[in-house]
């Protein structure tokens, strides 16, 4: 049962990912990406990573995609982006790019096939996932405490960078007159 669900969700995730690339308007791209992320969250849950499934929905669907939607609505790209993209030479040099991507994909699949013997499924007992929160916290604050602190510095510097970008922009707007 869970296996069938996994394959169905994989197909939906891949189809939505293709929708991100093929959609005419950026809004539809964001919604396709949302579908893909939700399918991936359920796949994480099926694979036994309960905390990461929750983090996927909270951080990706809850924060990052809302940020994308904000920007698309703020810049009013709903229709304009679609028109500009269509008039563009979208398929210029696509054959070479498609070939490169196909070669990459075939290479990765070959790599997987070559190491096939090493892989085996792991059974997760129901009700208890692989990423038990206690164990995860022990790893994060024990063995990985230095990357954890580095992550906090990264978050702080991101915050400062975004504020600096936004603030400088506002100052030039005031000087140059509002469009």
């Amino acid at each position, binding site marked *: 049962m*869970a*296996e069938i669900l*996994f*394959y169905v969700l*994989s197909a939906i995730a*891949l189809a939505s*990912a*293709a929708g*991100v*690339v093929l959609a005419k308007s*950026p809004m539809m*791209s*964001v919604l396709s*990406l949302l579908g*893909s992320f939700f399918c*991936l969250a359920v*796949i994480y849950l*099926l694979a036994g*990573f309960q*905390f*990461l499934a929750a983090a996927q929905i909270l951080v*990706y669907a809850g924060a*990052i995609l809302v940020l*994308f939607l*904000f*920007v698309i609505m*703020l*810049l009013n790209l709903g229709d304009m*982006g679609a028109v*500009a*993209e269509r008039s*563009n030479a*979208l398929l210029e040099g696509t054959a070479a790019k498609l070939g*490169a*991507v196909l070669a*990459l*994909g075939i290479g*990765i699949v070959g790599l*997987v096939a070559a190491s*096939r013997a090493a*892989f*085996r*499924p*792991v059974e*997760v007992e129901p009700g208890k996932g*692989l*990423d*038990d929160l206690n164990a*995860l916290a022990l*790893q*994060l604050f024990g063995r*990985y405490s230095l*990357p954890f602190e580095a992550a906090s510095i990264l*978050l702080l510097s*991101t915050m400062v960078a975004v504020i600096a*970008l*936004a603030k400088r*922009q506002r100052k030039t*707007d005031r000087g140059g007159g509002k*469009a």
Partner: protein
Amino acid sequence: MNVPSEHLLVLAAGLFAIGVLGFLIRRNVIIVLMCIELMLNAANLTFLAASRQHSTAQVVNLDGAVFSIFVILVAACEAAVGLALIIALFRLKQTVESDALSEMKG
């Protein structure tokens, strides 16, 4: 779920390939950023597959899970800075098409 970890890897490879394809053929910078998110998600799935493959019923290996938490964090930072840059770019150029950005002859 009794699916071999290699199937998770094949799904991750497919998502990553779609992300690379979108990164190469789309001109809209916002969609390019979304394709980067897609690729980061594929990397996440690979980490989780590795974590699952190296776990047994007795010993659980969480290294991959911890790394995917860091990947999610980096993705969030990247989206915030990237979108701030896109807004700055839009105010400067009134467009988000990457073809309009040719000052550096890229």
